[in-house]
């Protein structure tokens, strides 16, 4: 069985460590916040100018001045701090953020990522994604392994305009957990009941299978 979006988020949450500063992108990455292990202190960075992002506000307590990078109403937590956009990207550029999780349309086996533009179709813009992938030390991508037509999104080279080059370190898809090394996608874990053969078939980029591949604990 392929993982659900929630299960992808839960698996990514196992990459968190005590004291991490973390930037979560829009979509599946946002869900990672729901799976921070109890008792672990992780500080969420929102690139519009907040460290210490809390949960959504209770109904009636929404504050229009307090939003996240997805423009959703949010709250603060004890120890939160606000800053301007230059400082926000300053801390990102300076490598202060320990883990960045974002979505992707395509990832290549050398760690290139495309997630901001489909020529002629979608022209929304890159937002902060190019800054994040250019500077973050530890980038995990949350994505579906294939597109709705069943075609692989893990490619030898991206076909869409790039967001960044040689930057993605790990991919958690609905089918597998893969590290990106100099050798390509290294298959570390597979979704429960999903065979190595199926993953091989659905991965167009170079795939390395290092012996035994355990199932993802869900």
């Amino acid at each position: 069985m392929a993982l659900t979006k929630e299960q992808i988020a839960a698996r990514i949450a196992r990459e968190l460590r005590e004291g991490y500063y973390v930037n979560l992108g829009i979509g599946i990455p946002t869900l990672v916040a729901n799976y921070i292990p109890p008792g672990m202190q992780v500080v969420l960075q929102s690139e519009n100018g907040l460290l210490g992002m809390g949960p959504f506000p209770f109904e009636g307590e929404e504050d229009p001045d307090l939003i996240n990078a997805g423009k959703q109403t949010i709250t603060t937590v004890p120890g939160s701090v606000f800053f301007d956009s230059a400082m926000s990207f300053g801390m990102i550029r300076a490598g202060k953020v320990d883990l960045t999780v974002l979505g992707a349309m395509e990832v290549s086996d050398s760690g290139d990522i495309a997630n901001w533009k489909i020529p002629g179709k979608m022209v929304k813009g890159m937002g902060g994604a190019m800054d994040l992938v250019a500077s973050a030390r530890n980038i995990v991508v949350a994505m579906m392994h294939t597109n709705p037509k069943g075609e692989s999104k893990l490619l030898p080279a991206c076909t869409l305009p790039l967001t960044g080059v040689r930057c993605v370190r790990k991919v958690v898809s609905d089918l597998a957990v893969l590290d990106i090394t100099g050798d390509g996608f290294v298959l570390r874990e597979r979704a429960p009941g999903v065979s190595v053969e199926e993953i091989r078939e659905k991965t167009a980029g170079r795939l390395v299978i290092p012996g035994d591949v355990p199932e993802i604990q869900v």
Partner: protein
Amino acid sequence: MNKVVLNAEEAVKDIPDGAVLMLGGFGLCGIPENCISALVAKGVRELTCISNNAGVDDFGIGLMLKQKQVRKMISSYVGENAEFERQLLSGELEVELIPQGTLATRCLAAGYGMPAVFTPAGVGTEVAAGKETRQFNGKEYLLEMAFEADFALVKAWKGDTMGNLVFRETARNFNPLMAMAGKITIAEVEELVPAGELDPDLVHTPGIYVHRIFQGRDYQKRIEQRTVRKK
């Protein structure tokens, strides 16, 4: 020294057709609502707008787009505006999409008197096309120029008659950066107080950067994505 003006109409009255404007805000959070309304009423055209986003169809910069007052947008993300997308695809509107940190830093550079900065954002992508690059410690960077803007329009929570500004929560975003970067900076504030009332230790933007300030009115402060949890 008299920086205080009566209202938005007076503050923007000399903004001409073809001006290059900066507008603070992230989404609809912290946008200069009063100045935008005054520009719509004034009908000034052929504007270049530097702003992280382009508002929504019926609010923010979207109001100026609807009146076809904008010739060019320089933004990082424009996903929430159907009219914007229509004008872009039809070629009526020129758009330069740039990374959000690059946008912020090009404002910062202008306000700090630096002509350009090096950033890794966009290396190896179409953003790098035609730009000078340089290696530092084995990593490649792009040379990005400081912005030059005729007017910066910013929104603060509180301001004093000297032009000192204090922002609130995530409504700060690009506002202090653009305040530093405009040749003429216009600040609209929710509460205008006499000089001496703001704690000097807690001012975010020193008044030297602000040329005109006024007490704004009728703030809508629209929420783009109302997300809540149950009690």
